[in-house]
């Protein structure tokens, strides 16, 4: 069942007012034109007036009237009608009058409510009929109730149908409206512009986006030909032709599409780039042209942006490639800075050249003094760096050398390829450029080879020339460095003693190991000076800094120490004096560490002073070791009055003292103590000669890796005093004194009497003096002296290496030999090819008495 139509309360109230008014009208008409005489005119008038007032009230209340008031009002209508019927006594027509409220109820209310009102009407009319005692009451009642019931039902049914139809229409209307709104929203809200024109191209409609895109208001555009709306004039004809072609095609085949790109000049001077889709449609026999405009300006901009980015990226990659190449080129030049020696430099520079070219193989050929070439070849794996000598005329390199011009060879002949020594047979192109020293002199060539499919280009040759410039520069640099290094070495050597002094009873040895790959000489130096009285001064120092400044300070210190020592100053005094020397040198901020040690060759007594230097190492006769810690004072050049104090110790017979610089004990990542312990361990190997000791000490450094700093060692070994005394006596004035001292000391060990000591010492001194004076040995030669104690007898052998025997004045020589003969038990002289040997023997008197 359909829902009853709903009316608003205003309509209901008006209708009710109309009902009352109609009732009032009937009442007034009845009074005015009475059809019967028995009409109770006054009552009817009252009722009609009431009805009229109610009608006015209904109008007055209007929309605010509620349903229950309506029901009350409708019931009032029924009551009023019933009163009118009663008062007029007219029962025949009035059943129709009752139909009004009933129909009203049926019209406005639901069917059950309307029937309820009808029942009330029936009850009211029934009451009137009973009160008036009317004939045919039943029929009248049926008429009064039945007629409105039938009509009311019909009305309500009709109403509902009508209402349902109206509601449907309203819905459709609403749906249509909202659909239109949506479409408009879509079209207007679209970013794309929509334009429809008629067949002649005049604008029929545009959307909001089209207004924006074209830069014109809708009203301005409507009715105008589209091509006038900004299409450039040059395009007009083409535009028209297209439009016609589209329409013609469309008329034949139905719908036609056309896509084209348009540019439109806006009135404000800007330009629109758009893509347009145009299609022709037929509507009601009329052809229209619709167009969709899409702004592709943004897209174009983005595309341009993208293209710009791509271009920028490409440029950046190009730049990066160039940077890499330049960096690699730089690496070639840098090689000269990190590798000072040509032998180390060449493999590095070759490999870097290959990297610059990204070649599969590379070779460096340098002209040698004898005109041949030395060749260094490498390949990508870097494993095969081959060095060899080749003739200068051979192959591509030979041609480049001869012509002094770069050469680019594709698909080299088998011979040429063999001459390059490139191992890879797939090498398909070879570039070769000369190396120009100082930009002029050809010192060799550099060549690279590439495997197919890559082929070296002219650009590659240009790059190879740039590389070659740097290679040549690096080689020049290294060669210059080599010269410089030799000069530095020469200077260094000149500052170190040529030869160490020799004294009987001691052996001296020194080592100087420059730090690897250092052009500048270090500040380490050592010296050993013979002092009067069989003493020797040992010097070990380290001037801060390197280079010429350090070297000159070093030289000055060295000479100052020598001079002060010759003047007879002790070690502490010398240290004080040279400290002032360093302090006064205002021009340079120098410091120096220094150890001075004076050793008495006979007694082994050592007087030493240490100015901030690593402590000297003393090796005892029983191979014990100790560092001379003592008082370690500040380095030279720190304090004005450092108060250096000398200390004394004694080197035992068979012992040694070692001076060194910090390079010997400093090792990367290790404590100084570790290096010192290693040094002590190496020195404790047992008594020996100074040379062997130096070698053993140096080995501790080389086993720990290349020394980072210069290493200087000065070792002095004192002769062992056993049953056999072996001395090497240099032909020097002071030598004989030491010999006598040592001999006396040795003899004292065996409790020899003063007379025996006197005899042996005098005899041996005479023998050695003779050997030195008369053997005719060249200066710097030595005499071997051996004294052995055997069964209470001292057996002395003095051997000189004289090759040329000068004729001796008999008297001179005679006195010495006579003296010896008088002192000794037995004297024998033997002349040989390698010199003269004098053998002396004396039985010790203490042994005789024992």
């Amino acid at each position, binding site marked *: 069942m359909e829902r009853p139509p709903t009316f608003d309360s205003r309509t209901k109230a008006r209708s009710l007012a109309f009902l009352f008014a109609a009732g009032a009208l009937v009442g007034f008409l009845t009074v005015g034109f009475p059809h019967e005489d028995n009409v109770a005119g006054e009552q009817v008038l009252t009722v009609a007036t009431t009805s009229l007032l109610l009608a006015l009230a209904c109008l007055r209340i209007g929309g605010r009237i509620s349903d229950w008031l309506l029901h009350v009002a409708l019931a009032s209508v029924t009551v009023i009608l019933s009163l009118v019927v009663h008062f007029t006594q007219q029962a025949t027509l009035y059943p129709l009058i009752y139909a009004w409220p009933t129909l009203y109820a049926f019209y406005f209310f639901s069917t059950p409510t309307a029937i309820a009102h009808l029942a009330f009407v029936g009850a009211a009319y029934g009451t009137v009929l009973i009160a008036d005692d009317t004939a045919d009451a039943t029929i009248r009642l049926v008429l009064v109730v039945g007629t409105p019931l039938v009509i009311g039902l019909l009305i309500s049914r009709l109403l509902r149908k009508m209402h349902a139809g109206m509601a449907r229409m309203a819905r459709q209307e609403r749906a249509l409206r909202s659909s239109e709104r949506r479409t408009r929203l879509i079209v207007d809200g679209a970013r794309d512009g929509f334009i429809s024109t008629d067949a002649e191209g005049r604008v029929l409609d545009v959307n909001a986006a089209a207004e924006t895109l074209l830069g014109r208001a809708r009203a301005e555009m409507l009715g105008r030909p589209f091509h006038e709306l900004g299409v450039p004039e040059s395009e007009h004809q083409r535009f028209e032709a297209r439009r016609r072609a589209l329409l013609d095609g469309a008329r034949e085949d139905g719908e036609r599409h056309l896509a084209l790109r348009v540019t439109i000049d806006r009135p404000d001077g800007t330009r629109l780039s758009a893509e347009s889709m145009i299609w022709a449609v037929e509507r009601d026999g009329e052809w229209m042209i619709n167009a969709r405009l899409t702004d592709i300006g943004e897209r174009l901009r983005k595309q341009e942006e993208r293209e710009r980015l791509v271009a920028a990226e490409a440029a950046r990659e190009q730049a990066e490639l160039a940077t890499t190449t330049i960096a690699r080129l730089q690496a070639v030049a840098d090689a000269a800075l990190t590798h000072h020696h040509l032998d180390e430099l060449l493999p590095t520079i070759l490999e870097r050249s290959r990297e610059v070219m990204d070649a599969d193989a590379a070779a460096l050929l340098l002209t040698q003094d004898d005109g041949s070439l030395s060749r260094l070849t490498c390949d990508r794996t870097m494993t095969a760096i081959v060095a060899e000598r080749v003739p200068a005329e051979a192959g591509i390199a030979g041609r480049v050398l001869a012509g002094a011009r770069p050469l680019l060879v594709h698909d080299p002949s088998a011979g040429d390829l063999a001459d390059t020594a490139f191992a890879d047979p797939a090498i398909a192109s070879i570039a070769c450029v000369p190396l120009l020293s100082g930009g002029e002199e050809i010192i060799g060539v550099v060549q690279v080879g590439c495997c197919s499919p890559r082929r070296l280009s002219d650009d590659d040759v240009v790059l190879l020339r740039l590389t070659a410039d740097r290679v040549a520069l690096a080689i020049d640099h290294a060669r210059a460095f080599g010269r410089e290094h030799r000069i530095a070495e020469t200077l260094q050597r000149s500052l170190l003693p040529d030869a160490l002094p020799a004294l009987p009873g001691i052996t001296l040895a020194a080592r100087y190991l420059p730090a690897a790959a250092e052009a500048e000489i270090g500040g380490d130096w050592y010296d050993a000076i013979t002092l009067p*009285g069989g003493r020797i001064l040992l010097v070990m120092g380290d001037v801060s800094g390197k280079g010429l400044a350090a070297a000159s300070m070093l030289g000055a210190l060295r000479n100052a120490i020598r001079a002060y020592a010759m003047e007879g100053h002790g070690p502490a005094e010398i240290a004080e004096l040279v400290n002032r020397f360093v302090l006064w040198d205002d021009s340079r901020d120098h410091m120096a560490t220094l150890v001075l040690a004076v050793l008495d060759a*006979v*007694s082994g007594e050592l007087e030493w002073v240490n100015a901030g230097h690593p402590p000297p190492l003393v090796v005892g006769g029983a191979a014990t070791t100790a560092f001379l810690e003592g008082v370690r004072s500040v380095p030279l050049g720190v304090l004005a009055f450092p108060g250096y104090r000398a200390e004394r110790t004694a080197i035992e017979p068979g012992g040694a003292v070692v001076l060194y610089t910090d390079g010997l004990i400093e090792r990367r990542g290790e404590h100084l103590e570790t290096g010192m312990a290693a040094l002590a361990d190496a020195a404790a190997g047992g008594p020996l000669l100074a040379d062997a000791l130096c070698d053993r000490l140096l080995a501790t450094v080389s086993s720990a890796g290349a020394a980072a700093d210069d290493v200087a060692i000065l070792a002095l070994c004192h002769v062992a005093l056993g049953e056999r005394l072996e001395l090497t006596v240099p032909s020097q*004035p*002071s030598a004989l*004194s030491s010999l006598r001292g040592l001999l006396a000391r040795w003899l004292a060990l065996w409790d020899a009497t003063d007379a025996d000591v006197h005899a042996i010492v005098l005899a041996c*001194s005479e023998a050695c*003096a003779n050997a030195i004076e008369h053997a005719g040995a060249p200066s710097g030669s030595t005499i071997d002296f051996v004294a052995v104690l055997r069964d209470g007898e001292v057996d002395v052998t003095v051997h000189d290496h004289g090759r040329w025997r000068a004729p001796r004045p008999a008297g001179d020589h005679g006195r*010495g030999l006579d003296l010896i003969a008088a002192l000794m038990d037995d004297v024998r002289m033997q002349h040989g090819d390698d010199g003269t040997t004098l053998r002396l023997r004396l039985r010790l008197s203490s042994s005789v008495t024992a």
Partner: protein
Amino acid sequence: MSSPATVRCERRGDDVVASLRGELDVFNSAEVTAAVASAVTPDALGAVLDLTDVQFLDSSAVRGLFELTSLLAERRHWVRVVNPAGSPIAPTLELVGFSRAATIHETLDEALAQGRRDAHHRRDRANAGSESPTAS
């Protein structure tokens, strides 16, 4: 302890005292004797060679001393030598018979005193009678 040879010559009145120290050997004896010879100027009457502190003498030094004493004698200086009995070079001097060349005294004072006295006597004898013109 060995030490280099040194010479110190000083004038004591009319005489010269030359004190030698250290070890005298083939390498320094010539210089030492030459130094003493030049120190004894012609106006000096006599010379004393003090060898007390000489530690060593070898044959060259001995020869040098012989030559020095004879040279001084030729110049008509009297010469005395000081060397105590227990000195290191006493055996050498004895061995070579150095006492033949010069009188050896225990101390410097003794040498000076005796030297002057003998010279005085000799001069007196020469002045008084000149009976022995070749006395030496």
